[in-house]
């Protein structure tokens, strides 16, 4: 037993607890165990810690960014096109707005748009993917629905992502809300497929059969047993998707199909700077691009690390998780059985 604070009450009488179900009982303990083992992994993969640092920093700035900016980010002044100096760390733009303040304030917009789009996509993808996986191959109406859903996903995926998002946003009107919906829409197929594939494996497990045997309703089996045990691939993908969503948001805003100025957004600040590149005022376009790349980079590193950390074939190399937990996963021991 690697968990020091596991009480004696959790003795031999109860079924072995899987991470997800103990989460329902003792979320704090579960979180602590996961966090320490993740940090132990991070010690061996400093890249992951760098990513973690960047994402946490972005998250903090997303909350406090607009409060700590040195100048109001959307107010025009007479200090136009000033190069970077001590008063304006990143210079000013053609309307005299301070680039540093705008770049900092933009963290909030970019991150909230990207995260909400990803979140919507994640929830819809997991629910639909679980349903599609659970009912695939059963015949009747559910089968038709789940096959139909997959064909619709095929259709969405056959369009290049940026062009599909561009069409959605430009036809429904450029606004933050529509960018969020576009992000959710173009990423839906990936989440759906990942979850569906995981569910196809999970539903064959003995503990699902047991749950069915005890007479649980489909909905309950799905929500309590199938989804918690099939969510990992989608969870890992979420971090990568947030990075991609930031790129998509800024790309759309860059061409005027996303968030419009004067709202501070990285892509639209770069758009302002693009015409000044060939006349030498580089600072308008360069700094928001650096901030944007750094945060995307951070999310990519975290996603990459999580994937490796959770990959059972690679986990041997990082024997950092609880041994029992590890064995339970590798032998696919039932961990969804709840004492009824």
């Amino acid at each position, binding site marked *: 037993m690697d968990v020091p604070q596991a009480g004696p009450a959790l003795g031999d009488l109860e079924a072995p607890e899987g991470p997800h179900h103990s989460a329902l009982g003792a979320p704090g303990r579960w979180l602590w165990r996961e966090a320490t083992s993740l940090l132990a992994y991070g010690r061996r993969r400093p890249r992951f810690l760098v990513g973690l640092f960047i994402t946490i920093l972005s998250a903090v700035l997303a909350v406090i960014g607009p409060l700590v900016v040195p100048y109001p980010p959307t107010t025009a002044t007479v200090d136009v096109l000033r190069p970077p100096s001590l008063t304006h760390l990143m210079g000013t733009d053609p309307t005299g707005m301070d680039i540093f303040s705008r770049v900092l304030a933009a963290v909030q917009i970019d991150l909230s748009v990207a995260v909400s789009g990803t979140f919507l996509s994640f929830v819809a993808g997991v629910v639909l993917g679980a349903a599609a996986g659970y009912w695939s191959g059963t015949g009747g109406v559910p089968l038709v629905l789940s096959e139909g859903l997959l064909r619709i996903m095929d259709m969405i995926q056959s*369009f*290049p992502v*940026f062009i599909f998002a561009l069409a959605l946003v430009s036809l429904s009107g450029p606004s933050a809300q529509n960018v969020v919906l576009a992000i959710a829409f173009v990423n839906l197929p990936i989440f759906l497929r990942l979850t569906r594939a995981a569910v196809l494996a999970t539903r064959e497990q003995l503990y699902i059969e047991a749950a069915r045997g005890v007479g649980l309703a489909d909905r309950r089996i799905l929500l309590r047993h199938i989804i918690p045990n099939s969510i990992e691939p989608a969870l890992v993908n979420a971090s990568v998707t947030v990075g991609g969503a930031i790129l998509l948001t800024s790309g759309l805003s*860059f061409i005027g199909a996303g968030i419009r100025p004067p709202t501070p957004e990285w892509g639209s600040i770069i758009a302002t700077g*693009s015409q000044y590149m060939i006349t030498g005022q580089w600072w308008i376009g*360069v700094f928001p*691009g650096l901030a944007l790349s750094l945060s995307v980079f951070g999310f990519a590193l975290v996603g990459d690390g999580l994937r490796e950390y959770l990959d059972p074939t690679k986990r041997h190399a990082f024997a950092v998780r609880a041994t029992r937990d590890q064995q339970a996963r590798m032998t696919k021991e039932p961990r969804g059985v709840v004492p009824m």
Partner: protein
Amino acid sequence: MRTHNPLLFVAKRLALLIPQLIGISVVTFLFLHLLPGNPAYLIAGNLATPDEVRAIEHHLGLDKPLFVQYIIYVGNVLHGDLGQSWLSGNAVLTDLLQRVPATIELVSIALIVIAVVGVLLGVMIAVNPRGLVARAVFGYGLLAGALPDFWIGLILIFILYYKLRLFPPPLGQLDLGVTAPRTITGMYLIDSLLTANWRAFGSSLRHLILPEMTLIFVYMGLVVRMAASSMQSALHADYIRTARASGLRPWRVTWQALRNALPPVLTVLGISYAYLLGGAVLVETIFAWGGIGQYAVQAVTNSDYLAIEGFVLTAAVFTMLVYLLVDIGHFFLDPRVHV
């Protein structure tokens, strides 16, 4: 009966285009219905007279049931009628056809370079996974995934044009004062070569370099990664061990492995081709390229809805044809693919 008959395979694969085209037409048709309010007013633009609005309403059949509207839409598209761009005043199809070659030239050159260099780097990584190339490419891969294409383009412009004056300004496909070569394919590089117009050839080549560098840098990572991993597993296969044990020369062994590693790389190249078209939208805007990507952006900024619609349809058909070619390529690369 499982056979490896190329004609049968191509015929069956072509038949698959029909449901795909229906799917695409449904999606693009539904796009128009995303428009808030009366699409006819939005499509006609601010300066439209009531007569013009009525004409568009009639053209789209907005007064009829949805299914009938769809049939009308498909009929129009099949007749090459994508409506009229209120911005340019031309038929959308005319506008698109005029601009397609520039875009195809841009993305195809990028794809060819990505294919050649990407596979080469992939092989080098697979042969020596701990070597210098592998390390450098790993770093590049992390970077390229995080850097937005439009920003890279601007940085290249600033350094290579503004600072060093190595390349012409980002203002189109040819220098001012250089007349476009006689139109054969519509692609300046090829046309100038065919008509031996060296002035135009040099100018077009120099204008191509910066946008190509941007696209290649951003979109090559995926291909390198796939080539490396596919080549790595091919090199570990039993038949390669047999080949080595039989005393084949190393380059022959590598070649043998490469042949077997190619199919997944081909798939990724197909995906990259489609992504490049999306990237072209941004890159063309920065370099004022004048292809369909820039046309789409102008349409977006001016709410020229039928032009956007036409561009999306073109992109979808382009992607569909690329995947068709990928499938046919698979058939010839991999003898196990059957009809």
